[in-house]
């Protein structure tokens, strides 16, 4: 199976208090932010690796995992780290965040999919910076491929994937024909969430994603990492989303102590208006 994984580098959400907005309010100041891969995309990569191996012998890849990111030169470290955890090949589409929106990423990915011809595109359900939750869906639409979002489990079948989707109140299981787009949720990295045809159903993975081992980091230097111009993927680099201004969320007000339950209910009803 050949899998294309889309990886985005985001400002570390644990350092959200360092996000600054300049007085002009026309952008977010990213200087000095720490970056890390979008966690959901890392889960997608982990799922892709699990789908292309026998869990007992994870060093050998059955099939191919190609990772792609959109970003400036520095984002190659994110790709290199993905190669070091087991991906075979990487592609960087050279562009900066401020020149992108979800629709443009989806259009460019479509062109890349047509080139690469993967059986599956795996991606995070959303990126934790913008929380847009759109690219996977848009891409499936553009490709006219089946899609399963919020995957909590994936099981490989001949020519299809059985995907357990997180829905309100439980998990809905559906079978998608390949090729398909699948976006993943948090629980996809639990020990028994993903099974390739090769991996025994008794196998249990470590909880979470795998980490790059030093020998693999060394070997990853020799894995191919290609640069592609955005213009080579889509002639239309127009943005559908325009940002009109940024402001920080209002500072949290100090809490108050209520007198009694009646007071609490009254305030929830009249002030918070949640009842």
């Amino acid at each position, binding site marked *: 199976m050949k899998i294309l994984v889309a990886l985005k580098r985001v400002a570390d959400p644990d350092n959200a208090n360092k996000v600054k907005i300049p007085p002009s309010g026309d952008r977010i100041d990213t*200087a000095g932010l720490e970056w890390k891969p979008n966690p959901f995309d890392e889960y997608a990569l982990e799922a892709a690796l699990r789908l292309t191996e026998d869990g007992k012998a994870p060093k050998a890849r059955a099939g191919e995992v190609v990772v792609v990111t959109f970003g400036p030169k520095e984002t190659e*470290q994110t790709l*290199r*780290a993905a190669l*070091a955890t087991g991906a075979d090949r990487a592609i960087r589409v050279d562009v900066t965040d401020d020149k992108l929106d979800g629709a443009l990423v989806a259009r460019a990915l479509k062109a890349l999919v047509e080139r690469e011809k993967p059986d599956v595109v795996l991606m995070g359900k959303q990126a934790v910076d913008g929380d847009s939750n759109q690219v996977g869906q848009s891409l499936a639409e553009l490709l006219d491929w089946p899609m399963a979002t919020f995957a909590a489990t994936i099981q490989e079948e001949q020519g299809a994937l059985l995907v357990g989707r997180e829905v309100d109140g439980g998990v809905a299981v559906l079978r998608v024909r390949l090729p398909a787009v699948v976006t993943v949720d948090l629980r996809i990295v639990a020990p028994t969430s993903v099974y390739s045809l090769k991996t025994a159903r008794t196998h249990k993975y*470590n909880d*979470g994603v795998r980490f790059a081992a*030093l*020998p693999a980091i060394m070997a990853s230097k020799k894995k191919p990492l290609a640069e592609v111009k955005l213009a080579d993927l889509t002639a239309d680099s127009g943005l559908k989303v325009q940002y009109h201004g940024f402001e920080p969320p209002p500072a949290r007000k100090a809490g108050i102590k209520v007198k009694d339950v009646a007071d609490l209910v009254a305030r929830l009803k009249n002030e918070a208006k949640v009842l």
Partner: protein
Amino acid sequence: MPPQNPLVDDRTVDFILFDVLDVGALLALPAFQEHTVEGVKIFLGATRRLSREVLYPAYKPMDEAPPRLVDGRVVVHPVMKELYPRLVELGLLNATRPAEVGGQQLPFTVMTLASVYPMAANLGAYGYLGLTAGAARLIESFGSAALKERFMAPMYEGAWTGTMALTEPQAGSSLSDVQCRATPAGDHYLIRGSKIFISGGDHDAVENIVHLALARIDGAPPGIKGVSLFAIPRLRPEGERLVPNDVHVAGVIHKIGWRGLPSLALNYGEQGDCHGYLVGEPHRGIHYMFQMMNEARLMVGMNGVATASVAYQESLEYARNRPQGRPLRSKDPRAPQVPIVAHEDVRRMLLRQKAIVEGGLLLLGVTARYADRAEHAEGAEARQRARWLQDLLTPIAKTFPAERGFEANALAVQVLGGYGYSSEYLPESWLRDQKLNSLHEGTTGIQGLDLLGRKVPAEGGAAMMAFLEEVGATVGSALEAGVPASWCARVEQAAGELRDVTLHLLGLGQQGDAEAMLRHSADYMEMMATVVVGWLWLWMAAAAEKGLRERPEDAALFEGKRCAAQYWIEGELGRVAHWAALCRSGEDSYARMQDAWF
């Protein structure tokens, strides 16, 4: 939910590696050509995550359920079975070793600064790995090809673990008194004797354990020159099978810290059937061990830094969230209480911890870099000089983090107030862990004697000269970088005091009065460690000035370095004169004191 303890500050580690120690330049040495700064960053990233996500959550459970002796075998916390393979998988066991033994020849400097994370996360768990690396390394350096295949390979592969089995009840600090016996028996020796405190000496996390043990071959001369090194497996390979090798657990030591790792009393050869395999030549055991000692002592030093760091981070987060009291000038009792980090005295306790932890990080980093250069720098002269500096700084890099780290750990408890004294909170457990670091791998007392008695006088004081030159060079570049001239002068003055006292004490030694020379070796150690860390803070202050100019967006990082540098240089260096006076005066209270007068 409060954010998870980061264990160590990533930006500080990056600052030390890339801005201060210039690892990029180290990677340019031919030995390290396969490595890149990008690869180093990825390796650090993976080590950080394993430490935070996998090792740290297991720390408290392991501390609470120490190893038990069940039917003659030691049972450790079951999570260890999962943790060990994951540590091995990351490549930590043989990262710095050459390709011939499956390693990656990573600079020791990088490994040292990466290892602070797993140590801070779970010291006991990392202990299994550190001991195994040491045991395998001994065979790698001194063992025959057959021993390498039989014992080193399974250890480096992570299938078996190893121990360093030196200590006996009558031979702790004094290893020349080892009594364990080895009787020749064809291709092996029969071993008989007892060891105590052997860490990792038995457990059920892996199949087999190899003890690298000191013993005396029958008829060997007394003292250090009669001690040999043996590999003694728990199960010995016979054909395709592993059979019991007459190694027995006599007892589990109930420890106050490092409770995830068993330390044991062991008996070899109760039934006369314990096979030991000689490593290297007869009677060279202590010599071999001493060659490993430098790295082992640096590992212990980093244990100390790591244990102080994780507690510092915990107390920092606590101080940001604990409302208590009001600012000194606040007169309004209805004003809300402020978080204690707003109190100057709490910031004093935090800044002292920071100065110790980060000074310690660079101390280990710079000593490791001398070690890398001593092996791989271009030019025999550069290698020689690096070796002198490594040897001189090693007892300090072992002792400063253990002793000042213990103080930092006590401050972390103090910041938590009464809660710090409770086992519901973690700082007390790190205080317990830290105490070991002043005891094993040579007690603080032994390190002080080693520093002043051996390392300083070696080669006519060449190492000390080289050190003083390094300080001079740093003072020069700090002035150039725009560090306040008064700080530079202060460091220069302290280094001068150290030089003068050293000359005085060496003079006493030359007159043959070793007792007078070494009487204040403990004070000398404190003095020199304080000067060394002053030098390192001046170096960091210079890098911070440069950083402020080039990366203003990271101002908080650099301002923090400036404050800590000021704290150490203006505050702490003042104590140097006191210690210098003591060393010089030959004050003899405890020398005169007699046993009966206590």
